[in-house]
């Protein structure tokens, strides 16, 4: 980067996550936007919030305020233009400052593929980390074929990734109808000529073409010309949504959607029926096929709430047994206690979630600008209850 005046989202990701650095962040958005969503590293970051209009009114005073707090800044705003203006003001005064290209919007759209498996099984499992939003999607590759799970609307991410690996999509799966981001699954499948699957549950109308799958179905990928084959088992896990499904890869990795996270579980209130969906989630966690999976299964969720959930390799994963042992959500003894705890654990979801759900059920395209605006901010899909007192 050297003397550069800019840093790309990918370069910032390398610094914050790959190298664990803690550069000071100068966020020049207004206070409300800053309070709602900010850049996070795997270690805590020092942020300074000085809105850009302060640099228009009183550039000297604002620059001095920044100088007193430190140097070597990464300047951030909503879309990258105001922060470029501020970084230049700082550099003119002898400070070091680089601008995050594209701002928080670009930060929220960065997708970074991270390999999950160790390469010994003849197939590849990748977690595609949309780090700024805390959204995770997956690519499973074997014998030139690919299954994509929970694709975002940024299809170029998946298509480039697959082209580089000479793989073609044969199946696209969503774990459920997402509320926090727009699904790219149906469109990715259409462009690849592959089937798409998501289940809504009874009483909700999905206006997109799907090839239905049911609990227990096994999909097989690869296996041609002596290559390794890998199976994916469909597991029905109603609760976060009535149609939620998990996908068990090779009997070992559970793509768990928003049913179980590394810490916390998927909130059952987004349909406005916390009682009914909460009871279904309790049964999924304690009685359904998910509850019969062995402790050695590794959970790969659709979200993380904090970058501390990334392990040393940068993967968000955890043994099911460890989650079972540590999660207060799974220790609640009765349906009634569980539903009550869920009710208390969740705040009202962002208003825009209703619009995103409707758009994900509909075949109509959402214009890019609208989609970007709806998707701003980190996901709020988890419910976490405080740990029970020990002893």
């Amino acid at each position, binding site marked *: 980067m050297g003397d550069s005046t800019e840093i790309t989202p990918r370069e910032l990701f390398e610094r914050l996550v790959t190298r664990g650095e803690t550069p000071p962040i100068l966020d020049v958005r*207004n206070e409300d936007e800053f309070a709602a969503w900010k850049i996070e590293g795997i270690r805590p970051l020092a942020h300074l919030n000085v*809105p850009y209009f302060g640099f228009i009114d009183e550039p000297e005073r604002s620059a001095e305020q920044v100088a007193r707090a430190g140097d070597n800044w990464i300047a951030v705003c909503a879309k990258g*233009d105001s922060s470029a203006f501020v970084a230049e003001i700082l550099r003119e005064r002898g400070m070091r400052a680089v601008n995050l290209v594209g701002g928080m919007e670009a930060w929220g759209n960065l997708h970074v593929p991270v390999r999950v498996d160790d390469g010994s099984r003849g197939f590849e499992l990748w977690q595609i980390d949309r780090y700024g939003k805390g959204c995770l999607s997956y690519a499973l590759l074997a014998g030139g074929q690919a299954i994509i799970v929970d694709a975002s609307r940024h299809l170029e991410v998946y298509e480039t990734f697959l082209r580089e690996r000479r793989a073609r999509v044969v199946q696209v799966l969503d774990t459920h109808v997402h509320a926090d981001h727009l699904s790219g699954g149906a469109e990715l499948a259409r462009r690849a000529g592959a089937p798409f699957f998501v289940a809504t549950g009874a009483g909700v109308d999905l206006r997109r073409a799907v090839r239905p799958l049911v609990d227990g179905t096994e999909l097989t990928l690869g296996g041609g010309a002596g290559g390794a084959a890998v199976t994916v088992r469909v597991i029905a896990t109603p609760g976060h949504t009535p149609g939620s499904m998990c996908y068990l890869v090779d009997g070992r990795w559970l793509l768990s959607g928003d049913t179980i996270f590394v810490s916390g579980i998927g909130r059952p209130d987004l349909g406005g029926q916390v009682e009914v969906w909460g009871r279904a989630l309790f049964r999924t966690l304690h009685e359904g096929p998910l509850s019969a999976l062995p402790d050695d299964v590794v959970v790969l969720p659709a979200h993380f709430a904090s970058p501390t959930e990334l392990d040393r390799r940068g993967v968000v994963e955890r043994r099911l047994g460890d989650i079972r042992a540590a999660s207060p959500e799974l220790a609640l003894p009765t349906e009634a206690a569980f539903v009550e705890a869920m009710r208390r654990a969740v705040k009202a979801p962002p208003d825009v979630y209703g619009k995103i759900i409707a758009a994900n059920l509909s075949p109509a395209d959402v214009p890019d600008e609208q989609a970007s605006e709806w998707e701003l901010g980190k996901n709020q899909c988890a419910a976490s209850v405080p740990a029970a007192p020990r002893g």
Partner: protein
Amino acid sequence: MEKILDARGLKCPMPIAKAKKELESLGAQDVLKVLATDKGSVLDMQGWAKANKRINLIKQETETDESGREIYVHYLARLS
């Protein structure tokens, strides 16, 4: 007197940078009507008026122009 500042199509920080300049040339009784297409201008104008004691944000409205574009309209005056 009401003066119109057409900041449609401009990105941050331009709507506020231009509004500040215009307000300096207006009298205390005048109103500056700023037209912007950047939705971020709604919260930013509020934050600006809160931080700058010499700016009065009188009201904000949303309109739709001929092409169906959302226009964010801000009415500003000087306090001094």
